[in-house]
């Protein structure tokens, strides 16, 4: 199902930020719709778990060992591969607006504004710091309270340094159950599973149907 035309009406101009355009399909013989949809997603987690590194790896295919604390928010964009829409000749391409948000000491209006309108989030903990997962439960709850329908993926990052151990595996499992979210271990350094996490999140968001 394609989002209905009424979404683009004047009363509610860009509720879904849709820009559709005609494109020639691979067969060349037929025209089909390619619909681009912008979706906002957030990276959640306490400081230095690898949020910025994950975005850098996914969007720019690079990695930096040096830690530079993020301030405020930086939005990066990445066009996902086109997806077929079941029962329709149209294809959908999701343009992810990825919010790399600084770790926040408190939850206030500033954070609320950062989270607002997100369709999904990647919640990261650091496999070498078990307590970074403890803080995730609260962060995810806040995020869900602002975006009740949003999809979540739980991630244990820095797998190149340490595989999940008895502590972290249990924490990740509990988070996954509590928020009904799939879980991955990743390495922003090696790139392991990073693409898989974003693809999975897009699928979880159910775009566009």
């Amino acid at each position, binding site marked *: 199902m394609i989002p209905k035309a009424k979404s683009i009406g*004047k009363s*509610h*101009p*860009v*509720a879904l*930020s849709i820009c559709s355009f005609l494109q020639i399909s691979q067969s060349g013989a037929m025209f089909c719709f390619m619909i681009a949809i*912008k979706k*906002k997603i957030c990276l959640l987690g306490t*400081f*230095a778990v690898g949020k910025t590194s994950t975005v850098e790896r996914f969007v720019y295919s690079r990695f930096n060992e040096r*830690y*530079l*604390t*993020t*301030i*405020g*928010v*930086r*939005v990066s*964009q990445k066009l996902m591969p086109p997806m077929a829409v079941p029962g329709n000749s149209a294809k959908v391409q999701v343009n992810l*607006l990825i919010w790399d948000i*600084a*770790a926040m000491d408190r939850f206030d*209006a*500033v954070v609320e*504004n*950062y989270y*607002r*309108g*997100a*369709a999904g989030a990647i919640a990261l903990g650091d496999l*070498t*710091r078990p*307590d970074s997962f403890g803080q995730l439960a609260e962060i995810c709850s806040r995020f869900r309270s602002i975006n009740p329908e949003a999809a979540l993926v739980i991630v244990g990052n820095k797998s190149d340094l340490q595989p999940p151990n008895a502590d972290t595996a249990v924490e990740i499992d509990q988070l996954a159950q509590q928020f009904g979210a799939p879980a991955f271990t990743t390495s922003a350094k090696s790139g392991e599973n990073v693409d898989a996490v974003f693809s999975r999140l897009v699928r979880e968001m159910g775009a566009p149907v």
Partner: protein
Amino acid sequence: MNPLLKQILAARRIAHWQFDADLNIVARDRLAKTMPSLGNEPGGSLLAAFPELVGSEDALMAVIRGERKDLRLEYVNRNATDGDPSYWHLMVLADRATDGGILLAEEVSKLARLQQAYNQQRYEHVLLRQHAALRGRFLMDSILGDSPAICDLRDKIKTLSKVPTATVLLLGESGTGKNLTARVIHHSAMPPDAPLVEINCGALPDNLIEAELFGVEKGAFTHATASRVGLLEEAAGGSIFLDEIGELPLNLQAKLLSALESKTIRRLGSNRAIRVNVRIIAATNRDLQAEVAAQRFREDLFYRLNVVSLTMPPLRTLGEDILTIAHHLLAVFNMEFKKKVDAFTAAAEEKLRHYHWPGNVRELSNCIERAMIFAQGTAIDAPELILSEGIRVAAESVNDWSVPADGIDLDTVERQLILSALERAGRNKSKAARLLGLSRDTLRYRLEKYNIT
């Protein structure tokens, strides 16, 4: 838009854009061009120019309709073309005059950089601490084994890590790992940048050790041409590991005690007292109490050091842990010698288990290292494990030998010994060479000399 408001915004260096109810940009001021962007000219879509607003469309509309006061985003980071980040506070207000809205943007890069520097320090500090704790845990894992004695040792170290100032006395036979334990104690209790200084009190002559420990002021001796910081001073804020403390001469024992009590030191040739805060970890394989009784160790220093004492268990009491440690050493030497020896034969394990290991882990390590150097296959067998006890017995019997009254032909004896070694080594020349303390080449040369095939 109100001209007065425009003036105020320009004076405060706040950029602004006006947009209509369809969220298309209709106007912008001159300052607006200074914001790094994908293009935010009039005629374009507000959401394309400000992807940060995607997802907040409902809130935007609510502001335009007057149902919501404003919409703010703080510290929005936009990379400039030169790669430097610039930071902006964004705020959306309703514009009554046009039924649309105004977006205000104020550059706050300076403020952001201050906050960045502050947070960077704060977080790095926490990270360092956490990594130190982690490293302490990894280090703890380097004390191998599950025997009750080892578990008890680990528990005690864990407790000690919570009292980073307590003086610790490590007791136990030589080769039991007092050095490693000192390092684990230090790292599990101290921040990662705290120094750990080690000195072996038995390895230096008396006059040198004093200068090493306390430092020297320029001119203290005729050849003291420069001042030198002593180890106690170098260890300030961290730990000093005084190995073989039992060897420290009596006069230095007194000086050390006074330094510990007063928490100050004086360099040789100086009267200036220097405050030092150092954790003492001392170790000895001597029975210090007996040394005290024999008046070779000061009683007061003994009590000062013996606040917490840990006795390292001898290797022979560790049962199956001997094999755990042996396998760990196997892995270590495999890496070092690029070999693929991954096991001990049952007979070799038996031998490891039953030997009494007078030199403890150090001896075990030497023994396995020696076997690994010569190892050909993928498993180490019992004869390849040469134990110092065996060597000692051989040495004794060598001493028993003497030349018979009517003399002896040395070549005949050597030939005889080589034949016997070959037999004992199952005709394996490498092993025979090892039994004789010869290199393979030397043995080959002698085999030719004596015509042995």
